[in-house]
């Protein structure tokens, strides 16, 4: 399946760029020449595994393309970019942080939603504390960790808890969602609210407990090319790949849903 994905890449890149490019790029891809050079992609930490994989897939058909990734909380990354960090692409886990870049006039074209994600409760493997839902997170014997409210995952978690009418007190507000996952997989915390994709990235280390639809919060991820990118063609190529069917199927493998 990966083989087919890789084979279809060049075609999709070209078609994707011409047909479904979400914005009018100043330098549209017009040739099918392979992508070359290197770019730095700033992405929310929940995208860690999926983006590394997407980068590898693109390099299979474009051996001279190089991707450097800077993963962190979308809020930290947005702050870094508005303060001049050399990013070529920014993928945020929420609209608010992308908006900071848009407001600072640092996006080349409009930001496009490229993927969505759902929340899940991460617990120790096998769920020894028998956590059945958000209500159990308020139990005094449950050590709960959330992402900081400044971070998208923390904001979404508070929204879900509010929807469920649960007043849970976390023992720590971690700097990004992967730090929440780590605290649970290390056994320091009994539960943490993370994305479905985070639970999926740690098989055997955590178990996921589903959150019912009426308490669920859907995270929509926008992506944009950053103005002043030194390699707009490769940056645009990376974004277009993610929007293409091939890219979408890579993202789906990691548990992400369509935007």
């Amino acid at each position, binding site marked *: 399946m990966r083989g087919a994905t890789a084979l279809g890449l060049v075609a999709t890149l070209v078609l994707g760029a011409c047909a479904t490019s979400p914005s009018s790029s100043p330098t549209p891809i017009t040739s099918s020449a392979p992508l070359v050079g290197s770019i730095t992609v700033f992405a929310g930490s929940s995208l860690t595994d999926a983006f590394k994989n997407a980068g590898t897939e693109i390099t299979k058909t474009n051996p001279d393309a190089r991707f450097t990734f800077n993963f962190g909380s979308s809020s930290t990354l947005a*702050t870094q970019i508005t303060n001049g960090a050399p990013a070529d692409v920014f993928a945020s886990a929420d609209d608010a942080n992308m908006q900071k870049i848009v407001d600072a006039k640092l996006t080349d074209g409009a930001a496009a939603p490229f993927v969505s994600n759902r929340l899940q409760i991460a617990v120790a493997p096998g769920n020894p504390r028998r956590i059945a839902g958000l209500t159990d997170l308020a139990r005094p014997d449950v050590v709960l960790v959330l992402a900081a409210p400044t971070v998208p995952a923390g904001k979404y978690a508070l929204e879900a808890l509010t929807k469920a009418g649960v007043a849970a007190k976390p*023992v720590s*507000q*971690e700097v990004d969602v992967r730090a929440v996952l780590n605290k649970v997989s290390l*056994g*320091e915390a009994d539960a943490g609210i993370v994305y479905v994709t985070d639970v999926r990235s740690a098989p055997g280390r955590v178990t996921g407990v589903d959150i019912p639809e009426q308490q669920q919060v859907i995270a929509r991820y926008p992506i944009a090319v950053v103005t002043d990118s030194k390699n707009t063609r490769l940056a645009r190529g990376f974004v277009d790949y993610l929007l293409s069917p091939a890219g979408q199927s890579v993202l789906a493998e990691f548990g992400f849903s369509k935007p």
Partner: protein
Amino acid sequence: MRSERPPNLFAFLAAVGVAFFVLPLVGLLYRAPWETALGDLTTPEALTALRLSFVVSLAATALALLLGVPLAWVYARVAFRGRDIVRALTTLPMILPPVVGGVALLFAFGRRGLFGQALDTMFGIRLPFTTAGAILAATFVAMPFLVLTVEAGLRSMDRRYEDAARTLGASRWLVFRRVTLPLIAPSVFAGAVLCWARALGEFGATITFAGNLPGTTQTLPLAVYIALETRPEVAIMLSLVLLAVSLAILVAMRDRYLRAF
């Protein structure tokens, strides 16, 4: 000290060196929102972090004094096999990335850690996510400053005073208390102040081992990091507080106490 005129090249490179350290501070001062300074510093989150940092850094210094002065005495006075290795081990946190220290603390004193598990099951003590955990993290990175300073003080003091007191029949404890301690007081003071300043600035080990919760483990540096994304003006003012305290300490100590290094 004899003063002389530096060679031009040295003067230039020295000036570049100074600029390298001063420019970031100028940047911070330039961006500081002076009109709202007082309001930013008295926001509940800033006050909570200030109070907690005060408690954590002082407790860490107290713990470092309790364990560090005897440790320095052993290093300075007892010749034992492997002393250099042991000293290197206890100095390691000075150059180790604090995050690594935090991870190591988790594996030792975390809920699933080597000793943390026993602490939890036997005494019901859990250190991660507690103020005690933040104190432990701060002590881990800051205590070496005290130990090295005090050891240097002990090595450079005139031991004949101790010998004289001993021949006059004073017990070892009395000699330590009435002769040694007063003689090395400047070193102990300098070590404690350096240790306190380092504890005040601790970030990596704290956030890794103790987590981040306002009022419990969110010390000043953690509050700065979190506030930078939402309330940059609060972050800048808190940074300036840390900066002013650190600068005041270094200026006040000058060569007088820092000769130890």
